[in-house]
């Protein structure tokens, strides 16, 4: 393996460790606000993974939508509903041991499955700009889902407004 290969593997493991550590903090931290900040870290890690996968547009969308919109929305909601979760003795409910067991089994099962399937690697390095092709695909092949999802976003916006109104 050449130097670039070793460096890219190192970068990958660094990003992976950061993402998983932030994800762990998100589900385990007692203070919900700190958990929200850890969620932002996870989103950054996932965006970096998209960059490693040469999906630059999706990495930017991840930062804009997830960190810029969803994470900020979550942090606002935490601040609006915060007062009573401070004196809570535990933020994990009583069935957490069962849940943890099931999830460890699920992860081991998934891991074995991932290792056993003979995945086909047909990926070669892409050096061209992917965004024009993506735009063309969105407005030709995927035009109908694109329009439907915009209507759905509008419906969700109006619905959220009506539900959260006094």
């Amino acid at each position, binding site marked *: 393996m050449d130097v670039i290969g070793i460096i890219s593997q190192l970068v990958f493991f660094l990003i992976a460790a950061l993402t998983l550590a932030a994800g762990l903090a998100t589900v385990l931290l007692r203070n919900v606000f700190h958990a929200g900040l850890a969620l932002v870290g996870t989103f950054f890690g*996932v965006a970096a993974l998209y960059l490693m996968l040469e999906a630059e547009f999706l990495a930017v969308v991840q930062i804009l939508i997830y960190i810029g919109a969803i994470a900020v929305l979550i942090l606002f909601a935490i601040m609006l509903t915060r007062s009573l979760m401070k004196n809570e003795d535990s933020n994990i409910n009583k069935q957490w041991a069962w849940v943890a067991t099931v999830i460890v089994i699920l992860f081991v099962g998934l891991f074995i499955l991932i290792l056993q399937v003979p995945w086909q690697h047909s990926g070669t390095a892409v050096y061209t700009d992917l965004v024009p092709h993506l735009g063309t695909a969105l407005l030709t092949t995927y035009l109908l889902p694109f329009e439907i999802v915009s209507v759905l976003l509008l419906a969700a916006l109006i619905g959220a407004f009506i539900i959260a109104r006094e």
Partner: protein
Amino acid sequence: MITTIPLVYYLTISAALFCLGLFGALARRNAIAVLMGIELMLNAVNINLVAFWRYGSPDPIGDQSGIVFALFVITLAAAEAAVGLALVIAIYRSRDTVNVEEIDLLKW
């Protein structure tokens, strides 16, 4: 870059992130923390979609369906977060709690 990192690495990270999110969604008490767990699971699914597009597609430039699918998932996650957090705030207004164990109005 793409040749030195096997697809299995991405799938493993995605599986781990999905399991973490599932734990958060099933074991947390705070309703907003439950929503955060769901966001983690959606992110894990997106990593899978993009990794399969990048490694599995014979023509990753011409056929970007994996990216398009991930974009739609992100859009739906945004809609879900908006409606879910609006519900949490509405419940907080009427019942003064966001603890999912105390919100049992529909429990028989």
